[in-house]
């Protein structure tokens, strides 16, 4: 993008014309922000994800040291209540009371009821369990994503900036960790640390999740450190630290953010997969993968036990993926979304000539 603005020689190209008109007088960050806000799918996903996070975390009680927030939902995920039998048809127990169709369609009024998502075998409220599970999954996702991105950035930056033997050692170390398939490593970790709780599990998984990002950041640094502005900074007497953090890192931030998002969407699937195999979050705590694993055989008779946790996993992963895509487009100087329909049309006709 900035290239197009700097080099008027390119302006014979129609694309550059449109670009420079749209982005005149804006800083890099402003351009990125503007593009991201224009990305409809990403913005929708962002709001949906924030909504889910707020909904899920406020539903169940959270305690931070002495402060305890009770949660707005009446049941706790461990609390056992009477099984709904009378209301259910076909001899099924613990059926969901949620009814989203108004009475004009199926005769019953719209209601949330006592147990909107139904109940499990012993009468625990399934809505509370799904909320708790989604909390765990989201927590794991954020921890793995942040930790992986932070470690990956530091290791990649050092390797790419200093090159030579530092690079060789760090990259061989990365290969070292890449050798073991993630799910295998995750299982070994999960099997031994799963019972310490979801936070510890996420922490240990995060320690090994940085390899992909570190390779990308290293590549970016290798490229950026040869550019003129770095030489200029060095000539001006900037310290190594300043060059890395103030000059190179802001230019590599796109790569980092995008891959951190993708890492997060991978992390939620990793956690649910591990819990499904029994190597992740262990009972009495719940996670979405664990819920699906427990009730996969119940699908024919009590499908709601299977649908709800799955839908939450998909919703969260889908939102994160779309946000990642929006960020990638926003940071990618070559992308052409955000143009008006007329510009697109003129561009298309210009291209086909």
């Amino acid at each position: 993008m900035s290239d197009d603005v700097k080099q008027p020689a390119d302006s014979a190209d129609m694309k550059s014309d449109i670009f420079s008109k749209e982005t005149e007088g804006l800083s890099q960050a402003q351009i990125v922000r503007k593009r991201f806000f224009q990305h409809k799918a990403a913005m929708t996903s962002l709001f949906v994800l924030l909504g889910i996070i707020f909904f899920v975390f406020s539903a169940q009680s959270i305690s931070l040291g002495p402060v305890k927030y009770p949660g707005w939902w009446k049941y706790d995920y461990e609390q056992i209540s009477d099984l709904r039998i009378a209301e259910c048809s076909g001899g099924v127990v613990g059926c969901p009371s949620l009814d989203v169709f108004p009475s004009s369609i199926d005769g019953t009024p719209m209601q949330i009821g006592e147990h909107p998502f139904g109940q499990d075998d012993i009468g625990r409220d399934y809505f509370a369990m799904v909320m708790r599970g989604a909390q765990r999954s989201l927590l794991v996702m954020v921890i793995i994503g942040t930790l992986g991105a932070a470690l990956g950035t530091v290791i990649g930056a050092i390797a790419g900036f200093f090159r030579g033997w530092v690079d060789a050692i760090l990259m061989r170390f990365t290969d070292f960790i890449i050798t073991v398939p993630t799910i295998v490593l995750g299982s070994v970790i999960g099997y031994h640390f799963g019972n310490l709780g979801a936070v510890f599990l996420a922490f240990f998984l995060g320690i090994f999740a940085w390899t992909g990002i570190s390779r990308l950041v290293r590549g970016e640094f290798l490229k950026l450190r040869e550019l003129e502005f770095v030489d200029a900074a060095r000539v001006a007497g900037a310290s190594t630290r300043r060059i890395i953090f103030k000059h190179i890192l802001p230019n590599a931030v796109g790569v980092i953010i995008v891959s951190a998002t993708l890492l997060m969407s991978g992390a939620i699937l990793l956690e649910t997969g591990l819990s499904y195999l029994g190597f992740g979050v262990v009972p009495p705590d719940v996670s979405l993968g664990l819920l699906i694993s427990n009730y996969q055989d119940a699908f024919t008779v009590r499908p709601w036990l299977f649908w709800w946790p799955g839908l939450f996993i998909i919703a969260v992963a889908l939102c994160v993926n779309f946000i990642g895509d929006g960020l990638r487009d926003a940071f990618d100087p070559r992308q052409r979304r955000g143009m008006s329909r007329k510009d697109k049309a003129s561009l298309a006709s210009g291209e086909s000539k």
Partner: protein
Amino acid sequence: MFGFIARRIGVLIVILFGSSYLLYNLQALSGDPLADFRTSRDPEVESQIKATIEQLRLDVPAPLRYFIWLRGVLGIFVGQPDFGKVRTGEPVGELLMDAIPVTIRLVFGATIIAILLGITIGVVTALRQYSRFDYSMTFVAFLMFSLPIFWVAVLLKEFMAIQFNNFLSEPNIPTTWIIGISAFIALFFGAILGRSRRTFWIGFLASGLFTAVLLTLIDARGWILEPGIGPVIFALLALLTAFGVTQISMGVGHKPSLYASLSVAVAGAISYFPMQSLFKRESQVPVLLGGLVVALIVAGIATVAFARIDRGPVYRTASITAFIIGIIMIVDKLMQTWGPYVSSGEVQYRPVPTIGERNPLIETNDFWVALLDTLLHMFLPTIALTLIGFAGYVRYTRGTLLDVLNQDYIRTARAKGLNERTVIMRHAFRNTMIPIVTLLVVDFASVVGGALITENVFAWRGMGTLFRQAIGTFDLNLLMGIFFVTATLALVANLVADLLYSALDPRVRVGSGKS
């Protein structure tokens, strides 16, 4: 070059050594193989503990015990690797040899289909960038990215296996289904073809009507229980294949390749009846291999006969045609096997299984029945893995092709007056394939260790099951054996990917300077 490979292999061995040492000690530290005995009330527990210590060499501390294991593994250089024994006594090597083919069977088909489908849809979305088709495919790809495979697997078991088997006991396609499926296919192809409103409607109506007529015919003729292509439709399909392959590779305007692949198709159609009797023979492997060789030779003769220049591309077109026609012939034979298979006592009209690698009740020497059985057992896991895997290829192909299409040499190619097919297929697509091919190699390797969940859901006894067993029973030898296989594969695949990259892209040179 050789220096480069030698150096890389050296580094590879060092990494393998390091990471296996790390894993061995991590695993040894983090649990206790004797835990079961400590809570046991068996009066002979003392002697059992002693025996286990003896067997697993627990008297040697883990950092040193590793070298006992390593000495066994290093036997690989003298042809006698020893991965130690599982706790129940079987040698790890044998278990691995049993498990690897199962896992490869599980992932191979899925990876191939995912690649073909993913690259095709990726190319189309790139060519129709920002169209409705592009947007909906992007959405589908992201949806697939976000699906947990075990969740998909349960859905597939319910709807593709149980419900489908129920359907087979009364195989009548309801009219609403015919309309629904036709409408979906019509929309899909209409969107692919639709550059303008006119081409959209042509694609929409043609593919929709075709599907509707086909489904009605299938329903009316009872084709679902007694399928088969038959010689006439086979000949037609062969000719269509010839036209299609030629159009994609060289364009039907290129007479030598059109004639070459058409004559291959005619030869294939003529060979239909002889092949039917050959398929009845006892051993099928020589028949299939022989058929492949003959097909390639026929393609060669046709090339020499019709082309004087450009024989390479023409031969490629003809041989791809021959290959696809061969596949159609095999599918036809499988369809003929389907009827007797489905109605047999072991299957009883429930042909799509939800678990396992093969039907244990079927004991047959018939190659085709066994093949059909294996394929049906692969059906669900393959669909699940394909759905999850293809999304990545769609996005990757799309991104790479868009990058390539924006390059100057594409503009040059268009400016030379080359037609769009040549620009896309020869100039753009080939360069798109360079990064994709290297991605494939790495994927193939990682997938061997990575189908853990799928194996678990579908109860296949492959590497993933072994791995679970290793973790669950605290079996260090088994775990290290699995690690050795997957890690070696991953590292070798990375090396192959690098070499392939330099072979495909002349700008990348390995061996010179730092690697």
